[in-house]
């Protein structure tokens, strides 16, 4: 029986061996054939020599989450060969370089071995040893084209695009592809029972990583200052921003830049620069990960109290600093939400797709200006560093930036007396001025607290309390401005609440649960502070599963703390192994709860 467009293929390579581009082309070829794919890099914190895996999930149903088990293993790393062989599902296939024979103890009777003598095949063709190594990857791609029925001209077309301008590379790449394809056709059981065939499931979707998307969002959102410190998995946000800005944010007349990027000496400096620029009226951001959030905490607290706009893109990873920096988690919720000493709360946005990374990144600057406070975009490695299928980005050219409540010189001339921290409109948000606005009016001295509504120094308890209460009022305003939660289904007694990349496997998990008679309404949180709809959803259900990709149920903690909820009504579904959460994990934990609690399941009677 042939399975079309529904399998998981994993490439096991050595870090730095040039496999990434071949593997990327494999995924892109399928995407261009209209087949939904999702990709995952599983890589070490290392430059060269350690094992790395690239996993492609092919799903005609459009499931984009990670799925347990590997159908086809392309095992190119001797060091991990044993575990790679063991990872193949029964009935699956093992593709390997059989220039050296497979050790007998590694043989499995329940999988099919597909040996290709890659080294031997390339030896007579490519004399350069380094080239031979690189083309090994291209050659197995050619073999896979024959084995899985990938349209060959889609791949060769991609080679031509990828090496446009470096034409000398095109011919040898295509030659390597052909060597693999010819060998497979002649000696291997082509095609395999796992195959691809063209479909039209991708529409106008794009395939992009969340970090590039967030960078483009920052560009469109009007960011002019970016200060950052390199840290996996966030580095590519700043690098992409600079790359796109160099192309699209240059004065056409003089060729000068309408942006400034500073690679700072550390995260403290990065956020300091962002806050200094925000104070002076420029849209500014930094990108970082958990350890950076820890280092930025003091400054984030100051920005909260001093009411300065700042945007932080937190691409979360597993903690701590020396932990698993190249593995994904949603582990910074609490440290980001309450970053710093004193009573502080920060606005968080939770994108689930590259399109949301783009949109929320742009929106973050509006929110930060409107609310005069830091806004943190909570992405993660899974979303940030992997190519994900996404709706295309769109921008309304009539859209104006919301710069919030800023008084210019004319405004200052009109008003009788300027008070930076006066709550004129009753929404907790005062009016601010940029430095240098007016010769005699509107200047003020920025401090954390210890000031009155006119920004004058005071340590009066009444002034402090009044200010803190106003900040709380502003927090309530924030709850009405952040993206609303997305709600699915209605009328079921149980719900499931999730956010960020837990959305990727969710549809699949729900389908699996439906098969066993478990029906859940869904709520995807997109912003913090939580809107009223979040609490209404929880209130309307007997109990709600809360999916967290961390050990300590950080989203649940936020819900319980902020909403004063009974913890017993929120059932945690947790995964924190450093890979992204899979549908099977969600299904297993939800199902187990139903079994443990002897809850009724609704199974449709099939007639």
């Amino acid at each position, binding site marked *: 029986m042939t399975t079309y467009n529904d399998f998981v293929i994993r490439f096991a390579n050595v870090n730095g061996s040039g496999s990434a581009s071949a593997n990327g082309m494999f995924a892109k070829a399928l*995407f*261009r054939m209209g087949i939904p794919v999702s990709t995952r890099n599983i890589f070490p914190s290392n430059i060269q020599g350690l094992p790395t895996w690239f996993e492609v999930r092919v799903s005609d149903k459009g499931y984009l989450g990670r799925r347990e088990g590997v159908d086809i293993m392309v095992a190119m790393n001797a060091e991990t060969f044993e575990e790679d062989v063991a990872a193949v599902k029964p009935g699956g296939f093992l593709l390997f370089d059989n220039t050296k024979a497979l050790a007998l103890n590694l043989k499995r009777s329940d999988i099919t071995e597909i040996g290709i003598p890659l080294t031997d095949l390339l030896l007579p063709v490519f004399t350069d040893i380094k080239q031979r190594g690189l083309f090994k990857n291209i050659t197995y791609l050619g073999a896979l084209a024959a084995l899985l029925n990938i349209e060959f001209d889609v791949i060769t077309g991609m080679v031509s695009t990828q090496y446009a301008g470096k034409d000398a590379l095109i011919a040898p790449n295509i030659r390597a592809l052909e060597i693999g394809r010819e060998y497979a056709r002649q000696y291997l059981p082509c095609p395999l029972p796992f195959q691809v065939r063209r479909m039209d499931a991708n529409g106008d979707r*794009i*395939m*992009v990583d969340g970090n590039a998307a967030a960078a*483009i969002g920052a*560009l469109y959102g*009007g960011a*002019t*200052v970016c200060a950052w410190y390199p840290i996996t998995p966030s580095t590519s946000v700043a690098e992409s921003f600079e790359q796109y800005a160099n192309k699209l*944010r240059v004065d056409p007349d*003089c*060729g*000068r*830049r*309408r942006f*400034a*990027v*500073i690679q*700072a*000496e*550390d995260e*403290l*400096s990065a956020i*300091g*620069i962002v*806050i*200094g*620029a*925000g*104070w*002076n*009226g*420029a849209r*500014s951001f930094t990108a970082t990960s958990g350890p950076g959030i820890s280092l930025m905490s*003091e400054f984030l607290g*100051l920005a909260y109290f001093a009411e300065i706009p700042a945007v932080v893109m937190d691409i979360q990873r597993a903690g701590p600093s020396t932990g698993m920096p190249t593995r994904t988690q949603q582990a910074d919720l609490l440290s980001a939400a309450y970053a710093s000493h004193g009573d502080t709360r920060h606005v968080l946005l939770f994108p689930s797709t590259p399109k949301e990374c783009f949109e929320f990144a742009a929106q973050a600057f509006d929110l930060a200006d409107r609310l005069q406070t830091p806004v943190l975009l909570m992405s993660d490695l899974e979303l940030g560093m992997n190519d994900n299928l996404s709706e*295309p*980005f*769109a921008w*309304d*050219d009539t*859209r*104006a*930036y919301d710069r919030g409540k800023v008084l210019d010189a004319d405004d200052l001339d009109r008003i009788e007396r300027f008070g930076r921290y006066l709550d004129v409109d009753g929404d907790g948000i005062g009016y601010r*001025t*940029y*430095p*240098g606005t007016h*010769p005699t009016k509107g*200047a*003020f*001295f*920025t401090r*954390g607290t210890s000031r009155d509504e006119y920004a*004058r*120094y*005071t*340590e*009066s308890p009444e002034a402090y309390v009044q200010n803190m209460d106003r900040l709380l009022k502003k927090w309530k305003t924030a709850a009405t401005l952040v993206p609303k939660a997305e709600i699915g289904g209605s009328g079921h007694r149980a719900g499931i609440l999730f956010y960020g990349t837990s959305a990727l496997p969710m549809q699949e998990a729900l389908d699996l649960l439906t098969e066993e008679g478990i029906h859940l309404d869904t709520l995807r949180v997109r912003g913090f502070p939580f809107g009223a709809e979040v609490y209404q959803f929880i209130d309307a259900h007997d109990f709600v599963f809360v999916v967290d990709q961390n050990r300590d149920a950080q989203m649940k903690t936020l819900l319980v703390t902020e909403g004063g909820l009974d913890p017993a009504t929120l059932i945690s579904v947790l995964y924190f192994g450093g890979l992204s959460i899979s549908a099977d994990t969600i299904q297993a934990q939800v199902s187990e709860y139903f079994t443990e609690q002897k809850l009724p399941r609704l199974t449709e009677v099939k007639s």
Partner: protein
Amino acid sequence: MTFVAKPRVHHPKLPINEIGLTRRDYEGPVSTLCAGCGHDSVSAAIVAACAELSLPPHKFAKISGIGCSSKTPSYFLSKSHGFNSVHGRMPSVATGANLANRELYCIGVSGDGDTASIGLGQFAHIVRRRINMLYIVDNNGTYGLTKGQFSATNDKGSTSKKGSPNLYEPIDLVSMALQIGASFVARSFSGDKKQLVPLIKAGLMHKGFAFIDVISPCVAFNNHQGSTKSYEYVRDHSETVTVSDYFQPHDEITVDYDPGSSEDVKMPDGSTLRLHKLDRDFDVHDRVNALNYVQKRQAEGEVVTGLLYVDPDASDCHEILDTVQRPLNELGEAELCPGNAALHAINDSFR
């Protein structure tokens, strides 16, 4: 202490500068620092410099970290915005402020604890980046607000008010700034207005990173047992005050000496600071020589003051980054947003 406004009455004979303003237009509210604090002399020198240069008093960004020195930006140029930020992090905030609007005069005020200890890293890197600003360190060798701990610029062997000696080598910020590439480096003494005001004026007008290390005596904590200015002495001789909130008023320490000469200054703790004013023919364009000279004099127990180095053709960070002339904070959608058509092309590149 709460905000104290100064009376807005001008002395009729106050001189008027080129833009029709008097020195009072550059002042701030009354300082809350101890009477006689050297830092107030620095603030006064900043006021004098800005007034004499006829700079618009609202076109400044005043940034500071934390500490006595960092309180001072609220005591001068009250028509400009100021930002009392995070301990040791003034340089990064100033960097951001300067990136956002290159047209403002940026003055950063820091202390020796703020710059030489907690903020040493940020200090080093702002020097490297050549942010166009005037960076002043009010250097008193002690932590005033936390009551008298040694700072990293305190000389080895000098004693604290408790009598214990400083065991560690001092950091010389001037030497550091010279070594890392500051394009304007000077040192002065808070009480030497004749020298300090011109230095501040030169620093403000310098394009690029200007650094002035100002020795600024702490009247409250650079004292020790046996001194008539010490806590113990005051407590023993006065019954009406508490130990924690009383400082012996001290006269402002001033000096006036000629270039090329040395001057001994009595410090509040009874010690003597030997200043050496650079000769008029000192070559201010030779960085290596300046570094050698500072170190040599230091070995002889002298603190060199004056302009040590200037590179009048230096570039600043905006030039390095090749940013547009117009302040980034003035750019709107038309200049910033590439628009939907460009986005279509971006989308296509991901297919």
